[in-house]
């Protein structure tokens, strides 16, 4: 999502604020916080830009923070060791920045981590190269790879809840999530839309396979019913903070964050996969990428089983290849959204629908929250 840069910044602030409270504050964090404060509202066009791609190197653009470190460790370093081709990392492949780069014929990225619906949209508009599926494998979870974006990982919006608040049984479904009488307390939904509409329709009794095409008005009306009891989270770090502090009793959040919470609270906050809403991120290649066709073997290398499992272990991002999911070690099966036992409980967001409707749906959703 293009607002992820937003979140990355705010998330950083919250993370730092959290650290300060546990006395881990350092001078550098403080300075970063101040810098972030000054930078936050200005956004577009800032950041990055230092990595310039020349021949014989590959530049990956991801969403910064932990993923930068982990991607470098899992994808970058081993690839350079094996092939001698340096891999560099940059951040924030916002749609607007991708378009600006391609339009200005000043492309510095070779491969970018984007929402798969973004890859469809940008591909349709002519900003991306078609994936070379003769080198890259398309043997991924159905509905996650497309002409201009090959599946990178899957994540899910799960119901995470505070077990200590519900001694008589946990909320199992989105209908429970909407049931303020049986399950009292505040809720939290994603401020930037994804996950919320699917959840609302499921709560309203729509069958799992009937969600798409989304009936926007119906979903928004359903959310309106509980709006007064909903806090809208803005960044992954904020979603954790709301549950951790007990400000909300349950929330629709990313499985990776739910897992982190489960660990840090010794299971007081937990989650399940029932009715979770999965979505995929994709690797896309901008038109006129500097490394040219060198990028395809690199993307293929990111699909290898150990790389996929590394991503799961480090970031809670689910493997997209069937081969990798089959080899998930037992201790990681519980947190793997793509594990068959978990997968069959979930629904997958329809990337095609989102590629056509994201902007106007988000506008309607923000107006609903404000209005």
């Amino acid at each position: 999502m293009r607002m992820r840069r937003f979140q990355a910044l705010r998330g950083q602030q919250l993370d730092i604020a959290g650290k300060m409270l546990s006395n881990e504050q350092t001078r550098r964090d403080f300075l970063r916080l101040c810098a972030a404060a000054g930078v936050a509202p200005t956004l577009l066009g800032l950041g990055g830009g230092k990595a310039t791609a020349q021949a014989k190197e590959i530049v990956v653009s991801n969403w910064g923070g932990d993923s930068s470190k982990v991607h470098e460790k899992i994808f970058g370093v081993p690839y350079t060791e094996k092939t001698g081709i340096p891999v560099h990392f940059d951040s924030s492949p916002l749609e607007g920045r991708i378009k600006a780069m391609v339009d200005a014929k000043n492309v510095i990225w070779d491969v970018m981590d984007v929402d798969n619906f973004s890859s469809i949209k940008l591909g349709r508009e002519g900003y991306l190269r078609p994936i070379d599926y003769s080198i890259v494998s398309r043997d991924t979870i159905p509905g996650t790879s497309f002409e201009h974006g090959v599946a990178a990982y899957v994540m899910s919006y799960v119901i995470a809840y505070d077990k200590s608040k519900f001694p008589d049984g946990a909320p199992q479904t989105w209908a429970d999530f909407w049931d303020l009488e049986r399950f009292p307390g505040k809720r939290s939904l994603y401020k930037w839309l994804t996950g919320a509409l699917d959840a609302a329709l499921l709560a309203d009794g729509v069958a799992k396979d009937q969600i798409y095409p989304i009936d926007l008005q119906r979903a928004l009306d359903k959310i309106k019913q509980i709006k007064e009891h909903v806090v809208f989270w803005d960044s992954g770090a904020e979603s954790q903070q709301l549950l951790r502090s007990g400000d909300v009793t349950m929330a629709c959040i990313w499985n990776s964050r739910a897992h982190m919470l489960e660990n840090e609270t010794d299971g007081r906050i937990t989650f399940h996969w029932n009715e979770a809403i999965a979505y995929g991120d994709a690797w896309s290649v901008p038109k006129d990428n500097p490394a040219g066709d060198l990028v395809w073997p690199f993307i293929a290398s990111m699909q290898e089983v150990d790389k996929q499992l590394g991503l799961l272990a480090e970031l809670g991002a689910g493997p997209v290849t069937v081969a990798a999911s089959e080899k998930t070690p037992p201790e990681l099966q519980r947190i793997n959204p793509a594990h068959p036992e978990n997968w069959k409980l979930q629904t997958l967001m329809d990337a095609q629908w989102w590629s056509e409707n994201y902007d106007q749906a988000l506008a309607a959703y923000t107006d609903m929250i404000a209005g």
Partner: protein
Amino acid sequence: MNDQPRLMALVAPMFVLLGLVYLVPLFGVLLISVTEPQLGLGNYAQVLQSSAVAKVALTTLRICGITTILSVVIGYILAYVYIAASPGMRRMMMLFILVPLWTSVLIRTFAWLMILGDNGPVNGVMQSMGFERLAMMHNELGVVIGMTHYLVPYAMLTILAGMAGIDERLIMASRGLGAGPVLTFLKVYFPLTLPGVFAGTVLVLVLALGFYVTPIILGGGRVVMIGEYISTQILLISRWGVGSVLATLLMLLVLLTIALAARAVDLRRIFTV
């Protein structure tokens, strides 16, 4: 001997620079509001008919109104106490007023989030004393608390500047002529402080209208003020036209407030505190 032209020449580069880096882009924003996505006043019509915009505008005005009143009242009391305090006490007061003023707004905002959160220390104490937990964060109350905390020093310092200039002999004269303390305050002292109060009100109101980070963090996503709404329109959903209409209207509102203030009080007082 007339230095006027020479002085003007010295100042001219500043005007040119400001014009280039400030007025030109500003004009660009005004232009977008009538050109995106197509030429005409369509954006203005859309904004005026939108119920979301109406709600955002109401929320903004309500919060700014309450915040301004609270800030000015608290600021007035602080300034009054300061004037009456001993020099040592004054230094302490100034320290406690200026240190928060210099602290990053984000740090202060997060601090409120922790202190007044549903499970924060204040609610903990209240509950242990047998009171109900009070939802003070993730709602308008939280935003008002956070913004008031930020704005009180501005109100206080402005009012203080006015109070410091009052001739004490007027108070003594009033007392000497037989007025009691209350009557002296109401009839002599308070009217003399009014220009400062007015200046403080305008300053605080203008600052409050543009608040961005505090409502986002303390409002729990539901208290959407105009600053955030504009940024969402422009950065996230690419409705540049709508965003710039709102930016234009906000700017006009601020200019109007200042213009009204200028009729009532010498503007230089506000901006030379």
